[in-house]
């Protein structure tokens, strides 16, 4: 293949990557923005979403589209419920203290990951895509499902934007983020908002995972990579800034997709983790960091 079409293919791959990454990074970003805590178990909610999606589609053999739609609906719901309970039962008890929360979510990481190992087993398993068709470009054919992932992710992002900027819950979230105590005295049920945002963060990760599951295989350790990537995106994007995170997800997803086709993925990851550490040290507000919240 010539360089031009090759680059085009790489950008399409990057765009798929960026679409899923922006969902999971947005989840991490929301949680950090509103609760001011880092959820280290974020990647495991992602993995849980994929595992549940696999289980659902496995339970409906021969009906991949139905299975996929059911998973798209049920997996985030179940994951969100688990996250909500985790927040109310564990994080609320430690007052969402930032450092204690990191330790507690590391604990959750192991619990979820190891439960998946027990229930799902150590093997990577494929999930059937909901439909097969190829979009034919002049130089190569491309999976229609992958293209639809990009569209579905974009639609979901639009929906999240709507919730945050146009609904009562979104208003509560923004108020809680700006000033927790003021929100509390204004009658906003801050505890519930925390629980819901924590759940919403996990649901976004799970959604991303359901979309990617038919492309990649489902595995109990698959959460580590998106956790790291989401971290990178949220930090580069400016901690808690949604617009920054989305922009960063696009750039980093694309870069990662393209760079991985030219260089060793290990080297690419090594360099990007070091870059993130440097960004945190030199520009704590992030590269695209705006002081304006949300």
């Amino acid at each position, binding site marked *: 293949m010539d360089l031009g079409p090759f680059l085009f293919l790489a950008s399409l791959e990057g765009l798929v990557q960026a679409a899923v990454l922006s969902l999971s990074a947005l989840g991490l970003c929301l949680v950090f923005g509103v609760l001011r805590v*880092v959820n280290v178990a974020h990647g495991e909610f992602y993995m849980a979403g994929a595992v549940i999606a696999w289980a659902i589609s496995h339970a409906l053999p021969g009906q991949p589209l139905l299975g996929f739609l059911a998973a798209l609906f049920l997996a985030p719901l179940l994951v969100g419920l688990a996250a909500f309970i985790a927040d109310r039962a*564990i994080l609320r*008890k*430690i007052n969402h203290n*930032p*450092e*204690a929360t*990191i*330790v*507690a979510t*590391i*604990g*959750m*990481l*192991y*619990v*979820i*990951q*190891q*439960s998946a*190992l*027990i229930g799902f087993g*150590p093997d990577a398993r494929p999930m059937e895509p909901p439909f097969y068709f190829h979009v034919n470009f002049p130089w190569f054919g491309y999976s229609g499902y992958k293209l639809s992932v990009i569209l579905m992710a974009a639609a979901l992002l639009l929906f999240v934007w709507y919730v945050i900027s146009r609904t009562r819950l979104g208003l509560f979230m923004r108020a809680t983020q700006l000033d927790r105590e003021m929100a509390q005295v204004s009658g906003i049920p801050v505890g519930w908002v925390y629980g819901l945002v924590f759940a919403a963060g996990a649901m976004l990760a799970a959604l991303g995972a359901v979309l990617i599951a038919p492309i990649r295989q489902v595995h109990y350790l698959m959460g580590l990579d998106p956790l*790291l990537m989401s*971290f990178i995106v949220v*930090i580069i994007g400016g901690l808690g800034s949604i617009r920054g995170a989305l922009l960063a997800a696009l750039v980093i997803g694309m870069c990662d997709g393209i760079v991985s086709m030219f260089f*060793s993925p*290990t*080297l690419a*990851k*090594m360099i990007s*983790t*070091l870059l*993130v*550490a440097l960004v*945190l*040290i030199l520009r*704590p507000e992030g590269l695209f960091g705006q002081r304006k919240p949300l």
Partner: protein
Amino acid sequence: MTGSGKRSLTLHIGVLVLLFLLPFILPDYHQLVITRIMILAIFALGYNILFGYAGLLSLGHAMFFACGLYAAGLPVYHLGWEVPLAFLFAIVISALAAALIGAIALRTQGVAFMIVTLMFAQAVYLGTLYFSDVTGADEGLVLPEHARSFDALGMRVDLTSPEVRYYIALALLSAAVLMVCRWVNGGLGREWVAVRENESRTRMLGYNTFLIKLKAMVISGTFSGGAGAAYGLLFAYVGSTFASIQYSIDALLFTLLGGAGTVLGPILGSFIMFYLVDFFSGHTTAYLLATGVVLILLIMYFPLGVLGTLRKKWLPWLP
């Protein structure tokens, strides 16, 4: 020395004497396990200096452990160095690495510090995977025959003997405990605690708090690196696993469990956790589940750990 000082010294020496006597009564299997535990306890002791005393929560201490491991193991493997030389070299390299990483990472605080240390450690881990020609990556390297014994003080020290390994580990642990005791009961320990309790006040008083934290980082990193070097040399193996985030979390877990900010806490934590995991792994492949559950329960109900809770309730003299 005050009365409480004497009591605590007696306690620490008592624990070390107990460890000295254990091999005479325990079966061989436990001798090996406790050798490992003692080395990891040195790692946790080092971690505790930074976290328990200076109040800095690092999520990347595996990088120092791995740094010592590789700095000792690679020269032995590739260049045929003698064991004692490799150990000393590893100590020096770990101290330098900790100074460098500390000088950079200590520009951040709180959550940012946690993430920066995590990221650095991840980069080191990926590095050990990437340079697989040198490090052996996941499969690791088994150290050659010549590294299984060395001459010291006119004696031939045989590292394949379980007793010899046990007593080397104990000697290192004893040295580490005595050093930590000396520091934390002296001026340096008070400076660390001052930074942990109220950093801005400490700076206003006239302390260079950055330097105090850097000292904690270097000592902590050197202990961790020393533990890594000892682990690699005693068991003749180096590999990427030891650089993985799991080991950073273990150090945190041992320290939290035993009691952050107590000298013996990390040692006790290492023992409890090791035997707990040992027990679980006999029954299930998902033994890390225990790690997760213990972490959550600890942070929710016993943030002070076993010895921290004891100290608060009954034994205020415990260091």
